[in-house]
């Protein structure tokens, strides 16, 4: 199946939003409280602006080559060899992210909803479901993301507002402590993964509808930064800085303490919607692997590719289940690939494309 899908700018906003916020919301307050303390909002905003630049480069590239995706225009820019290198890199990268997300989902489901269900059953069920959605293509996914994204955004922001109302203002004050500045470098490093995922736009072919995509995408990244700040500050307001550091799933723990009208178990209420974000993350990762694989193996039918990817995911997840501290390993080693995929590859392609265009123009002028 060829990639003739397209998305609107609004759909793109929700794809970026759900891809980036997949799991970050749950342990982000702990990570930030540990590193930048009460001044966390500063590194979050810095990283959101930097990744904003990254996403502008990707959208510009996509707009320079409308109706094409990375696999197509990369061949025009850097040739087949580099293109295949990039695509293989992205395939492996998204496969590992997919495994990480699926294991996170299994852990979350097991600790909150299905304590007695064997993990492999959840994996089997999840992979089948996500595979089916990925098979449907990016346009259908984007339509679903619009609904999921809005509900997830409203519920999460609503809970954050309740946290601000019920929390202690002095827990988040002062907004800036000069002694936190020396920890900003570490905080920025920790923020790379929560902002990683912008490269997902490489699987979306842009059309005339996406002319203003660069501006929209940049603003989306800034808004995601604000969204993260709300989550971090809300959790610290409710739990206090020490409790936020001590609890792994600090955002969920903070939600448990929030008083909400009518709803007694706020955590279960949130998880119902929070899980949609995790599902969305896995769907888009599965879709990314599928789209790259479909391009690489153009002769193989899409459903066959989806099934093979599903089996590969399942096997890798089973391996992942048996690796101790998989999450820590992922967090330690995923930063560099995230930077490569978000900045190095897009910047290289963009620079070469620009140079080529300039050379072509010069050539034309010379001929005239």
């Amino acid at each position: 199946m060829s990639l003739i899908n397209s998305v609107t700018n609004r759909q793109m906003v929700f794809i970026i939003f759900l891809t980036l916020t997949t799991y970050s919301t749950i342990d982000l307050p702990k990570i930030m409280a540990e590193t930048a303390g009460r001044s966390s909002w500063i590194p979050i905003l810095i990283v959101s602006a930097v990744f904003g630049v990254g996403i502008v480069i990707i959208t510009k590239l996509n707009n320079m080559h409308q109706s094409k995706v990375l696999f197509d225009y990369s061949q025009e820019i850097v040739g087949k060899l580099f293109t295949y290198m990039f695509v293989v890199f992205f395939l492996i990268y998204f496969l590992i992210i997919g495994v990480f997300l699926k294991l996170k989902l299994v852990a979350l489901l097991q600790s909150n909803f299905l304590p007695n269900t064997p993990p492999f059953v959840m994996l089997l069920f999840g992979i089948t479901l996500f595979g089916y959605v990925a098979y449907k293509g990016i346009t259908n996914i984007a339509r679903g993301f619009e609904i999921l994204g809005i509900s997830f955004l409203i519920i999460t922001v609503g809970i954050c507002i309740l946290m601000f109302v019920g929390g202690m203002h002095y827990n988040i004050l002062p907004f800036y402590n000069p002694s936190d500045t020396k920890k900003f470098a570490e905080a920025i490093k920790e923020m790379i993964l929560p902002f990683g995922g912008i490269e997902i736009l490489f699987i979306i072919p842009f059309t005339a509808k996406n002319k203003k995509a660069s501006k929209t995408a940049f603003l989306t990244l800034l808004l995601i930064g604000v969204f993260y700040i709300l989550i971090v500050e809300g959790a610290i307001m409710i739990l206090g800085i020490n409790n936020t550091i001590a609890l792994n799933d600090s955002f969920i723990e903070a939600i448990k303490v929030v008083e909400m009208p009518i709803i007694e178990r706020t955590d279960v209420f949130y998880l119902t919607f929070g899980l949609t974000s995790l599902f969305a993350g896995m769907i888009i990762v599965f879709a990314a692997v599928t789209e790259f694989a479909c391009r690489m193996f153009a002769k193989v039918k899409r459903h066959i590719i989806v099934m093979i990817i599903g089996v590969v995911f399942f096997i890798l997840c089973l391996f992942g289940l048996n690796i101790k501290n998989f999450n820590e390993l992922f967090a330690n080693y995923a930063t560099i690939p995230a930077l490569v995929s978000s900045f190095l590859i897009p910047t290289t392609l963009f620079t070469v494309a620009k140079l080529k265009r300039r050379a072509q123009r010069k050539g034309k002028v010379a001929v005239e």
Partner: protein
Amino acid sequence: MIKKNLTKHIKYLLLIVMAIPFCMISAGCHDSKDINEKLIATAVACDYKDDEILFYVEFADISKRQGPDGGGGAEYIFVKAYGKTLPEVRANLNNQIDKPIFLSAVRALILTESFANEYFVEYLYRFRADENYRKKIETVITMDDLETIFSTSHQKEESVGFMIEGLLQSQAELGKSFSRNTMRVIENASGNYTGQLIHCIGMQEKEIAITGYSVIDNNKVAGFIPVEEAKGVVFWKADNPKFSYIVPYNDINLTIEVELKKRKMTASYENGQIGFDIKMEFDAELLYGDQKTPYNFEEAATKEVTELLTEMLLKEFYVTVEQSLNKYKTDYLQMDDEFRIRYPEAFEDMDWKNEYPKSEITISVNVDLSTTYMMDYGAVDVK
């Protein structure tokens, strides 16, 4: 045609592949337990006597009170367990019960002074690490015998856990006390400076009551402020504190309700001297007198009564500050937060426990007194 059939088959195959794991997920619920098959804990109490830790866990036995329609209340019982360490006591407790414990319904955590002096932090961290507990439960300290508290309440078919939760929440809503869930207690206990106040409960006749506030310093009980002497503290810490004062004026004892309108604290730090400037604004309402209802209260009289009330309040606050600075040398008024917010770097470098008692605190009080406007509907003829 063949292609269409194939797609159809693939759809069926996908459906089956999805249905099988769904059945298996459902199978994961096979060993789920009905709530009746669990012991619902409503309060946990800890004591330390003769080098041994004692746990008292209150359970709601809903099965004994169920009517034919399935409704009905609960009967409360408690189980007591001993041990040398916290895990040992818990293991001993488990050995005495026939069903697994459901901890998510616990409403209150009660610690005796002796237990708090030995295990305050350890127990709170244990609580925080156990995800089965609701983190917004109340933590209180008691000087009374735990067995007496439980048996007296259970004789009246009352739950100690629910009673304490209701008591603390209603008092906070009425403006007679401040609220402080266990997560806030743990947050304070985990910080660089650990001074705080925790509600102290006890038996008054046969009722559980807030008897005062235990002063916690360095994660040990350092003192006790009786509830009668704690108005100043509550004005300092509660969200909407409101108390009645009796002001003697021209042979009449005037009852005045005083409500805190605004509280502003400003920290200063000059030449190594910590200072706080506290400004409190109150709305006061003259309710009644003990001899003659003071109708048509003149402006001059209002001014005089306001001055008398302001003086009373000021005196109360200076006693509160004096107690905190000199008697207990503990910042349970949480002035450290104000100072930390204003001078974060200086705060990090100082030992607040040593510096706080040296601080200078000035208080100013502003009272806006008004008389009650009442309408006697009985005196009006409705036509």
